[in-house]
């Protein structure tokens, strides 16, 4: 989507500039700084923090995929964990049954994801909103059932163990290497999402989300575009699932519970609906939050005394924070971010002039 030219003193002089992702030199400088920070992070941080960052990056891929589907195309899904599971199981089963390498299982996972995208998307042609969410939920249970049956039939009662991927003749086990693999995956997903959103498909999704009937009358193939959203989102999600399988070295149904779907929904809502940045912020927040609570609780005096209930308290705190977010900040993290940004951009003024103000 094209954006309002922001920085003063910077004017667009060609149509190509409307289409550019990076608009101003200032943006470019910030981006460069961020990139340097991301690249040096694993060399500064402890292995544990690198693992946390990797978890967050992996979550970002899934969250952006869900944001594409729910936040932009308006199709609500509670079956995200089912698609992650599908990707992970594709990688796991192929690895176990045929010993297929990394570079073959990933495309296979994407293909399975695309196929399931059509399956998960078909109900969307008839259903909307919560009913659609529930149909994806039902499909999630079916995928989980199939995966579970495979596990028990093949006797992998404690999950399918997967060897680390071999790249350039070396098994990738180093946390830093994984950090960079997942960072690449996240950045590529980000680019794919941004590219789609500023093109024809992205506009079609936005139109469908706003009003299906109008979109249809304008000549947008509603069914085809809905399915497209499902397919792309599911492919990305499936890939994230396969990456998860390799990263953690195992696959099992229990890892893809309904709660995982809900966590992803929480990511995009807490992050801020309809914003890719929101998906990223939400993924980071939801991933890191339990650790933050734990760290805070460890700092409280006499932490040992209530160790027995600490985890229940941690669990409950997650619920409380989610509620607080939903009630107090419906725009999500990205809403806060934008407010802060506007505040600094407009300082010392308080309000933005309304665009296209009344004559």
């Amino acid at each position, binding site marked *: 989507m094209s954006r309002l030219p922001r920085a003063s003193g910077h004017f667009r002089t060609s149509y190509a500039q409307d289409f550019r992702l990076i608009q101003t030199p200032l943006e470019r400088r910030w981006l460069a700084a961020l990139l340097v920070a991301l690249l040096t992070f694993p060399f500064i941080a402890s292995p544990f923090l690198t693992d946390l960052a990797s978890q967050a990056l992996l979550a970002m891929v899934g969250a952006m995929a869900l944001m594409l589907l729910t936040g932009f195309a308006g199709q609500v899904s509670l079956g995200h964990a089912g698609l992650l599971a599908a990707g992970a199981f594709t990688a796991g089963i192929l690895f176990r049954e045929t010993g297929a390498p990394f570079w073959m299982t990933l495309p296979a996972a994407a293909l399975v994801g695309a196929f399931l995208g059509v399956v998960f998307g078909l109900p969307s042609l008839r*259903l909307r909103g919560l*009913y659609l*969410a529930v149909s994806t939920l039902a499909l999630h249970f079916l995928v989980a059932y199939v995966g579970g049956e495979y596990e028990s039939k093949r006797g992998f009662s404690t999950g399918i163990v997967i060897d680390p991927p071999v790249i350039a003749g070396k098994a990738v086990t180093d946390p830093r290497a994984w950090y960079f693999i997942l960072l690449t995956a996240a950045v590529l997903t980000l680019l794919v999402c941004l590219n789609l959103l500023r093109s024809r498909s992205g506009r079609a999704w936005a139109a469908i989300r706003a009003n299906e009937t109008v979109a249809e009358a304008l000549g947008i193939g509603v069914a085809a575009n809905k399915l497209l959203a499902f397919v792309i989102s599911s492919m990305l999600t499936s890939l994230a699932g396969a990456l998860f399988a390799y990263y953690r070295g195992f696959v099992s149904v229990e890892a893809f519970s309904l709660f995982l779907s809900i966590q992803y929904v929480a990511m995009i809502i807490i992050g801020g609906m309809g914003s890719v940045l929101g998906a990223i912020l939400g993924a980071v927040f939801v991933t890191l939050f339990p650790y933050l609570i734990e760290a805070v609780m460890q700092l409280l005096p006499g932490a040992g005394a209530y160790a027995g*209930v600490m985890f229940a308290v*941690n669990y409950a705190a997650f619920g409380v924070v989610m509620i607080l977010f939903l009630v107090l900040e*419906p725009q999500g993290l990205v809403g806060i971010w934008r407010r802060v940004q506007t505040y600094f951009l407009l300082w010392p003024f308080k309000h933005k002039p309304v665009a296209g103000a009344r004559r």
Partner: protein
Amino acid sequence: MQLAVNIAVLASIYALIACGYVLIYRVSRVLNLAHGELMMLAAYLLLTTASSFAGHPLFAISAAIGLSILVGAMVYLFLMRKMTGEMALAAVLATVALGVLLRGITVIVWSAQQQYPATALGLVNPSIALPGGARISLCGALLVACTAVAYGSLLAFLRFGRWGVRMRAAGQSPLLAAQRGINLHAIYAIAWSLSTFTGAMAGMLIALDSGLGQTMTIIGLKAFPAALVGGLDSLAGALAGSLIVAAAEVLLIHYVDPLLSEVVPFLVLIAMLVVRPWGLFGTREELDRV
């Protein structure tokens, strides 16, 4: 014969839980995914009142029911009320968050251990012989009876009760209802209370019958497809949906493969969504107009 009894008991369990989903959805178009947790909370409250009113089981049960009705109203007033006007998905997520919170709280207060409120109340749960050689436990029989009474009175209330009619009105068109002098907050709070009340009955009876632990929440979720099969906005539909799902489940367990019982509700649900997306008795959403 035993099969019929099994179907009746299972259908009653589903129906009693499902009507909680339906009540809230019908009135406020919110899907309450914390219903299982509210059920569980009610059962735990019974455990607590059982020890406070030792020796007076009826007293303990009514106190627990009263408390859970209060909880339902408070959930609306302090949480869901703030969610009016937000996206449907956000409201659903709020109920999920509430569920997480409640699960945490129950572990903090009552620990994760399996509990037996029946023992705490000093109640026994004998099995009753029925004609035809079938048997049913007392709690099972109570479940069927409670479900029948609950549905009977709810249907009557919604059809003939002045406030029941107003509840239906608020569900159809909240704005017009408000313009006709109805306090929507009161209506929604009543819906939440009623829903928690029926959920509490289900939770308590299940806990009395077979003990109480964190798994209760999963049972709450299992009744959800039943509500959908019938149509989320129809009480009669919830009853029919529960019967269909329960019958499918029991018959498959008996004649095919017990393992299937886990996915059966969802298979029935998907079949239903394909054929009649708005459910058996549900009302079709209006056509979009330009």
